[in-house]
């Protein structure tokens, strides 16, 4: 590591580069997986243009060099990691064009690649340094700590986890749609459904056991009577249609 106040930039040797990659494993590993499944594999297929292979290689170089520059030149590291890697990946997909659509590959692999890109994006979020205390920051407003109004129910994290997994089910199924236009529409519908499910699921998980804020059970059931009756009616009609057909 460089001493503070050093005038000349440090020489990056192999050991420090490996250390930088290890320290940023939360971005490098998902990025590497995302690159392999969604950028490298389609660009290595027969019929893929050479320019797409070049941009795919540039994306890999940007991904691997970003952590090396991150500690000394953060703007360059972030520029390479976010704009360089994502930009080159996007350029690869644009250059692949029809060959990317014609050769969809394994839907599960594509879905896992999308998850890896999400993890990569989350990895670039600012994290608290090890040992840093947020209250020590100069902009903190001093005063008594704010206590939470209620403690979450012990099963709330498990409920939310279950709802989260179930909400991702349509997103994964959308990758099984073969046609491009229909697949795009299926992805849009699946993402909208996942957002709605996770939003409501978060409210369900946090409201478990909260008696003070919610009305009586009978009032809650009465409030939900109309949509419940409509969905039951629709379900019954569908069943009837299935029997008649």
């Amino acid at each position, binding site marked *: 590591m460089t001493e503070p106040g050093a005038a000349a930039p440090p020489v990056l040797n192999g050991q420090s580069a490996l250390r930088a990659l290890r320290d940023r494993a939360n971005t490098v590993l998902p990025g590497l997986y995302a690159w392999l499944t969604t950028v490298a594999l389609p660009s290595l297929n027969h019929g893929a243009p050479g320019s797409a292979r070049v941009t795919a290689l540039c994306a890999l170089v940007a991904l691997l060099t970003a952590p090396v520059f991150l500690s000394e030149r953060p703007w360059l590291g972030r520029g390479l990691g976010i704009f360089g890697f994502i930009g080159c990946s996007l350029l690869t997909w644009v250059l692949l064009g029809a060959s990317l659509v014609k050769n969809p590959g394994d839907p599960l692999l594509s879905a896992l690649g999308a998850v890896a890109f999400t993890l990569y994006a989350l990895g670039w979020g600012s994290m608290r340094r090890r040992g840093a205390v947020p209250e020590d920051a100069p902009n903190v407003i001093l005063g008594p700590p704010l206590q939470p109004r209620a403690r979450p129910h012990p099963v709330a994290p498990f409920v939310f986890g279950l709802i989260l997994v179930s909400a991702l089910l*349509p997103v994964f199924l959308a990758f099984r*749609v073969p046609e491009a236009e229909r697949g795009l529409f299926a992805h849009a519908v699946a993402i909208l459904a996942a957002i709605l499910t996770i939003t*409501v699921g978060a409210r369900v998980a946090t409201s478990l056991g909260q008696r003070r804020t919610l009305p009586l059970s009978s009032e809650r059931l009465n409030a939900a009577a109309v949509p419940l009756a409509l*969905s039951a009616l629709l379900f019954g009609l569908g069943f009837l249609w299935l029997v008649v057909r």
Partner: protein
Amino acid sequence: MSKVVDALSILLVLGASLAFAVGVAALGEHRDLAAIYWLSIGGLVLRAAVELLRPRSSAR
């Protein structure tokens, strides 16, 4: 009773996501009417879950 309503709200959200999943699967199989049907059911069931969680009004 409130625990039963809580469990019902969890089941409704899980049921809604299942209906959405069946709807998306039907969309991929070119069964457009079935897709609209399952996505509508998912929306209605999710709406029911939201209504179960509506907080107590401040006027009371």
